[in-house]
């Protein structure tokens, strides 16, 4: 049994007028203990929405309208809000996009870590919780005594480390990191990624890395889920995605990504723009921008096909050679 299995997850957003926009449809994937999954896509593709839906933290307009989220076989979507609260952070912790603002500016870093420990009943005393907070900070490379400082006294990279320390407080089984390095400099980005990789290895965490950066995924993830316009385009092992991609979107995205080891190679671009949620194409959501589209593509969305063991592609021409 997989640690986490998501089946056919669908999320709508309600507009002001109450009409639903299908932000995410039919997303399925699974995650084993100690493995890492990369969730890749451009802005607005629904990758963050999927993660928020897992923890049932969607914004007010969001509705989970279908699917199952099985954590150790238990469907999280059927839990009461109180039961769900015990899953959050204790079992599944999350590092949010823009960690700059994820910390309460008027409370010390330590108190925010201690809060998680005491709330979930994981510390015998406040003293013990403080001790543990110090250890966690040391674990992510922050001297324990700096826990008594406030977020504004930390640099951007340190805040991200502190958020990661906080996420590890309850020994979660799964850590979700949503764009953990966006807005950080390349060197700090490398530091944070190395930290996450090390923690994942040492603590046998299952890691979900949500990012728009294919390079990061290639370096740190075992499996990759490529999303486009709210649906899964391709889901396979990291090696298959980067070396034998089958979905036209994945192929083009890889060609658009500059490779520093081959400077001067031409960069491809994908004409057009990602679909807007209020004007989704009736067929394949990538069809209007696809260079290999057929007539059938505009008629109905393609089903996900498993073309090789664990390699899923949502494309009518998945099995045709590119």
């Amino acid at each position, binding site marked *: 049994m997989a640690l986490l299995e998501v089946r056919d997850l669908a999320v*709508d957003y309600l507009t002001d007028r109450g009409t639903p926009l299908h932000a995410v449809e039919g997303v399925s994937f699974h995650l084993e203990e100690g493995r890492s999954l990369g969730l890749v896509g451009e802005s607005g593709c629904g990758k963050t929405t999927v993660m928020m839906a897992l923890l*049932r933290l969607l*914004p*007010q*307009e*969001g*509705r*989970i309208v279908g699917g199952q989220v099985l954590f150790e076989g238990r469907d999280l*979507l059927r839990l009461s809000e109180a039961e769900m609260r015990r899953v959050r952070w204790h079992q599944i912790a999350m590092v949010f996009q823009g960690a700059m603002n994820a910390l309460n500016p008027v409370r010390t870093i330590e108190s925010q870590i201690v809060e998680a420990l005491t709330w979930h009943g994981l510390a015998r005393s406040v003293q013990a919780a403080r001790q543990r907070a110090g250890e966690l900070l040391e674990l992510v490379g922050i001297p324990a005594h700096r826990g008594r400082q406030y977020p504004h006294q930390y640099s951007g990279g340190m805040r991200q480390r502190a958020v990661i320390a906080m996420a590890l407080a309850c020994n979660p089984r799964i850590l979700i990191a949503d764009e953990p390095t966006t807005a950080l400099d390349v060197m700090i980005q490398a530091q944070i990624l190395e930290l996450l990789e090390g923690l994942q290895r040492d603590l046998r965490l299952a890691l979900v890395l949500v990012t728009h950066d294919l390079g990061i995924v290639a370096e740190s993830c075992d499996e990759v889920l490529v999303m486009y316009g709210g649906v899964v385009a391709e889901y396979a092992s990291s090696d298959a995605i980067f070396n034998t991609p089958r979905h036209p979107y994945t192929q083009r995205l890889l060609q658009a990504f500059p490779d520093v080891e081959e400077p001067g190679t031409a960069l491809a671009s994908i004409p057009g723009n990602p679909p807007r949620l209020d004007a989704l194409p009736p067929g394949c959501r990538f069809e209007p921008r696809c260079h290999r589209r057929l007539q059938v593509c505009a008629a109905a969305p393609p089903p996900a096909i498993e073309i090789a063991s664990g390699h899923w592609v949502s494309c009518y021409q998945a099995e045709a050679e590119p």
Partner: protein
Amino acid sequence: MAAISKFVRNPMGVIGTGMLLVVVCVALLAPELAPYDPQARLQVTPADILAPPDAQHLLGRDDAGRDVLSQLLYGARVSLIVGFTASFMSMIIGTTVGLVAGYFGGRVGNALMRVVDFLMVIPDLPLMLVIIAVMGRGLLNIILVIGLLGWTYTARLVRSQVLTVRERQYVLRARAIGASHMHIIWHHIFPQVLPLVIAQAVLDISVAILEESSLAFLGLGDPTLISWGTMLNFAFERAISAQAWWFLLPPGFAIVWVSLSLILIGNTLDQIVNPRLRSHHLFDARRMVNIQNSG
């Protein structure tokens, strides 16, 4: 255009506008609507003094036997004139100070903001009382005092908005294409500030009206004019013990009516031009999962 349609769809804004239009019409048409000359010296018998409402005098008579309804209708004029002119003055001064202090900053800007801080700390009403008591109780003085003391909040608002707009890249772009300061202020800064200023100015009208009525109630209204505040001053001094509610309540509710209308409009405008984040993170999360039970 989008702002107008948003305003029209907001019941608070529409009701407020309707209420304000009523007052404006009353003020304009006061001579036609008023059954009596409110200032006229009347031949009164003792029975006329504080006479309760009857068919001739729908809101009764005051302590000098004059018609309360007619005074009420004329009173709208003073409130609106004071409100609109004082708020207009505040708007002009506040916007100019805010723009200069925010855009140019530096020593001049700092000095201006110290003046603003100073004026904000001085208690308004006592200051007005003192100035009017010394300068005299004319309508012009009242307008000047309210207008010249009421611009500080607008100046702060404009300045803080200018400070953020000034850092936007399109202002840098305007500099890069060679635009002058006047061009940048007029084309790139002012349009972003104006909606906020207008929303604030509407709220300022109601503040000015409330301040005028307070001054008048405390005996510092223009003695040659009838305003709602003056009426309440007379009523409170002379009629409260006589329980003459018809003299006491109408001017009070008139003030509430007009200031409420302006507050409703201003609040709606503020909601439209000042869109704070649409949703927040604490809501009833039980509604989020919306799956039909399917076993």
